[in-house]
């Protein structure tokens, strides 16, 4: 190689040394994305067709001004409260499901495990209860809601039950993880000296982990408010159901009002939960 073919120092400084690699990876990504686009019928240009533009333009235009009729605002206020109430009632029932299952499935409270290995019976009982929690958690709340709407009819009951089951599973699983991740010395000391499991729980395990447990519960309550709006779309009452109705009637003004109320509600729940969790330390 002779000296003239070598790039001048200036050009070498400007050239990106990893240029070929970058171009290759961008190309590879695009090739990989292609089948995904086909599978999802990804055709953005359809959005720009005249009749589609007309419909969406019409709908978007009707967002302004948001509906502000007193009757409608009263309805929105009532449904907003119902949304919060569904989430709160759901979380309360979820706690009723989660706590007994957590107490029965946590390994820290095992007496037979004190002597090394857990006995076979309790081990499989705990493992079985864990599986119950995982199954409860892994069915999405929307699916539970669809099922319960069939059984108990449209309305808040289906939403409360759906949240109770899914969040019961989630809370139970995470409570178990929190209890098992902490220091077990105090609990063990109580159990070794003849304390009962409940005593060990209330005097050792709970005080150690109370802040973390409460903070997680508050966070899940915030999530439940969000999901209770979503559950309304399958007929489980609250703000979501009203939103669905207004969307089906292409009433943009009402949708806009409810979206604003919903965002305010989520922001409020967000702040309340952040404040509570900070206060808990």
């Amino acid at each position, binding site marked *: 190689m002779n000296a003239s073919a070598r790039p001048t120092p200036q050009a070498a400084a400007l050239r990106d040394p990893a240029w070929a690699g970058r171009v290759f990876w961008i190309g590879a990504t695009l090739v990989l994305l292609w089948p995904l686009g086909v599978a999802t019928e990804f055709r953005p240009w359809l959005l720009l067709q005249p009749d589609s533009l007309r419909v969406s333009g019409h709908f978007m235009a009707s967002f302004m001004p948001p509906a502000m009729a007193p009757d409608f605002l009263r309805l929105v206020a009532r449904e907003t409260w119902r949304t919060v109430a569904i989430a709160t009632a759901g979380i309360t029932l979820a706690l009723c499901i989660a706590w007994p299952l957590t107490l029965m499935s946590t390994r820290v409270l095992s007496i037979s495990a004190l002597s090394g290995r857990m006995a076979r019976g309790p081990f499989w009982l705990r493992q079985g209860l864990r599986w119950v929690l995982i199954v409860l958690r892994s069915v999405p709340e929307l699916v539970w809601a669809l099922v319960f709407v069939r059984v*108990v*009819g449209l309305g808040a009951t289906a939403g409360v039950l759906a949240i109770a089951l899914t969040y019961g599973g989630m809370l139970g699983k995470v409570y178990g993880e929190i209890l098992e991740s902490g220091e077990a010395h105090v609990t063990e000391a109580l159990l070794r000296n003849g304390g009962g499991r409940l005593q060990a729980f209330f005097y050792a395990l709970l005080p150690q982990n109370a802040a973390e447990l409460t903070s997680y519960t508050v966070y899940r309550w915030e999530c439940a408010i969000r999901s209770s709006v979503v559950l309304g779309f399958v007929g489980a009452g609250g703000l979501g159901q009203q939103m669905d109705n207004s969307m089906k009637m292409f009433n943009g003004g009402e949708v806009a009002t409810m979206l604003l109320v919903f965002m305010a509600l989520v922001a409020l729940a967000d702040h309340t939960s952040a404040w509570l969790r900070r206060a808990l330390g």
Partner: protein
Amino acid sequence: MTTPKTHLMPPPLFDARCKACWFTLGLIALVVASFWSLDLQWAQFLSLDAARSMGRFLGEFFPPDLSAPFLAKVALGTLETLAMSALGTGLAALGGLLLALPASRLHATDPARARAPTRLLLNALRSIPELVWAAMLLISAGLGPFAGTLALAFHTTGVLGRLFAEAVENAPPGPADALRTQGVGTAQVFVYATLPQVLPQLMSYTLYRWENNIRAAAVLGVVGAGGLGQLLAFHMGLFHMGKTATILGAMLLLVALVDALSYLGRRLMSR
């Protein structure tokens, strides 16, 4: 006259200065008000009649429809769900990166005038759930997976944009400052100094959201936005219970698989 032996008594249960007491009272009031104001039909739910109809409902799930053509349809729905989540997350990662730049203060003297409005936009995108986006987008994008993909992309753009902006602002400023003092332009500083530093973090956020989005995409279809959810809503609406059972099984399998893979992946990476 003897002084009362207060130290032998338990502390009073309620004290107006005790914040925890007020908090507990408020909590109890909220719970009671919630149960009282909702017209919950426990009688209907816990009655013998409801138990029977629940039993019949569950009984109809058996046998699940496992015929080859229907299984192929479910497999296609599962692929569609995966494709929706992947493409939605990919679009969101791009959109999030584009919005994260105006939403972050790139260096100490950056006026960052667009920071507040862009963050407001990101918050708005994020606070509307995927399903609500999907229901709205159905109007312009029509029934099918396209609306679902866009819905996932919009919501996730809000989430990722905010996380990306935090990552960009928290990146060590040294390399970027070094380039900037040499007179290199803003875009090049970002691409060659800031981006390589935060890229691993951005990738891990994106992968995490992808995992969430697979779960979301599975149910998104119940409003008509494609994937397994749309199949589920369709067959449940027509009372094809055997088929519904198969779709539910596929959904649970998908979610369990994603959970297991992400658990394994995290175990492998954290080792």
